[in-house]
């Protein structure tokens, strides 16, 4: 079930704990690339670390500076392992692509919706998104 319906926006493979953002996050103004922490005070996941996580969120938000912030976080090694987005977001896609070109960073981005209540460690591989262990939620 989980492999279906996903589309790779930025190719690559990654594993990480799923971090489901319940509201969209503007990476600029919302993520501190020095620490990898969410700093948007109005965001429900304020204070959580994105480092090494697979971020699931509906879509990006706000500032067009978010590409730079993502690339900088990936350069510093504080960035996420990958993204699962409900809808394509070129601002996030470009940040990942540029970090790959400049620093060889891998941060795959897929488009699609995870089953409700998904948690734990997941893997992105091309256009497949699968949980690493345990029962598949909603399957």
């Amino acid at each position, binding site marked *: 079930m989980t492999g279906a319906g996903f589309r790779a926006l930025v190719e690559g493979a990654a594993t990480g704990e799923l971090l489901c953002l319940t509201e969209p996050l503007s990476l600029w103004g*919302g993520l501190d690339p020095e620490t990898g922490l969410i700093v948007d005070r*109005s965001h429900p996941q304020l204070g959580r670390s994105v480092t090494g996580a697979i971020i699931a969120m509906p879509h990006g938000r706000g500032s067009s500076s978010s590409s730079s912030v993502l690339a900088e976080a990936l350069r510093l090694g504080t960035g996420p392992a990958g993204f699962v987005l409900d809808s394509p977001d*070129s601002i996030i896609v*470009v*940040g990942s692509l540029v970090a790959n070109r400049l620093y060889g960073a891998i941060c795959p981005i897929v488009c699609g919706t995870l089953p409700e209540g998904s948690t734990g460690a997941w893997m992105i591989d091309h256009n497949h998104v699968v949980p690493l262990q345990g029962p598949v939620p909603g399957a």
Partner: protein
Amino acid sequence: MFLTESDRAMLQGEAGDAARVAMELLVAVAESEDAAELLDISASHIDGGLYHGQAGLDFALWLVEGGGQVLVPTTLNVSSLDLLHPQLYRGDQETAAAARRLMDAYVDMGCTPSWTCAPYQLAQRPGLGDQIAWGESNAIVFANSVLGARTARYGDFLDICCALTGRAPAVGLHTDEGRMATLKVDLRVPDRLLDDDLLYPVLGHLLGQLAGTEVAVIVGLDHRAGEDRLKALGAAAASSGAVAMFHATGVTPEADTLEAATGGHTPRRSVVVDVDDLIRTRASLHHGEGPLGAISVGTPHFSVRELAMLATMVEGLSTTVPFYVNTSRDALTQAETTGANRAIEEFGATIVTDTCTYITPIMDDVIGVVMTNSAKWAFYAPGNLGVDVVFAGLDACVASAVSGELVTGEVW
């Protein structure tokens, strides 16, 4: 995806390394968006000149090294430094030097050093139907909504890729279909509120929360929604949501009627906004209590008109707290011809150009809350600067500045 002969030539490096990489990135993004082809653009606005760390500088320097030159008229967004008033910068010199190198890199690529988040206030601005590639969320929403020019949400990096190639993915807001409103926002408030400047950023903040990425059509505004007010509305909506375009019937150029805005379709969603919704939204923009520490206005950059309005309001008065006015060097030059800048400076305010108080260390250490008339500033400053914010109208900002106490005015 269909590529023209000249697109393919760029991909093969015939226009140099920078154009090759720009085209590669552009094609990768276009494919991620399922674009069938690229289209020609006539102008670009670049957000990449604001320093966020080494990555942005590495990319820009790499493009300069690769012979990058913009192919269309290209303006530059705010940077991290006020080049006209360098003494205002209070950050470390290493960051300032890197920020300056970044600014120089974009100028080296042929961009105009306009250093403003409000390029739509410049004399040369795009018009109805023009295909453009703009960065800066508030500029994007203004270009689409108020000018009727056509741009997607271009982030750092992609904006310069478009400028270096003169091309953009032919999808979304670049197409007729992508500009149709799918959300109807029915504004039902007392008529007098339409005369209040503060209605517009509050409505915008709510619009961003309601619309997310959708194109909305607002019914219930009228000619009183001038450019400065629509600027405030759009900037707020693009901060609280990912709004890149809205229509307002009878106000914006592609919404003579509701049907024109929706393309004759029934909106997928319809929401009524009343005065209680707006009062709640307005209250949500307050983040703190305490003594008044400073005031910041002009986010997005004040227009010439707003500078003149402020100059009139503050005549003969003095501020008792640090008061910052963000504007563009172009607007400042125009204000100098009327003396508006002098009136603002005599009031004791600090005019900031080329940058903005919420993105770079300019404000003195603030003890207490910062007051602003900008929903965008109120949204980002707590995270960026670690300050608490009180949101109020420009008149309340001036009254508070003079008395040294928080005067927030009537809550509708």
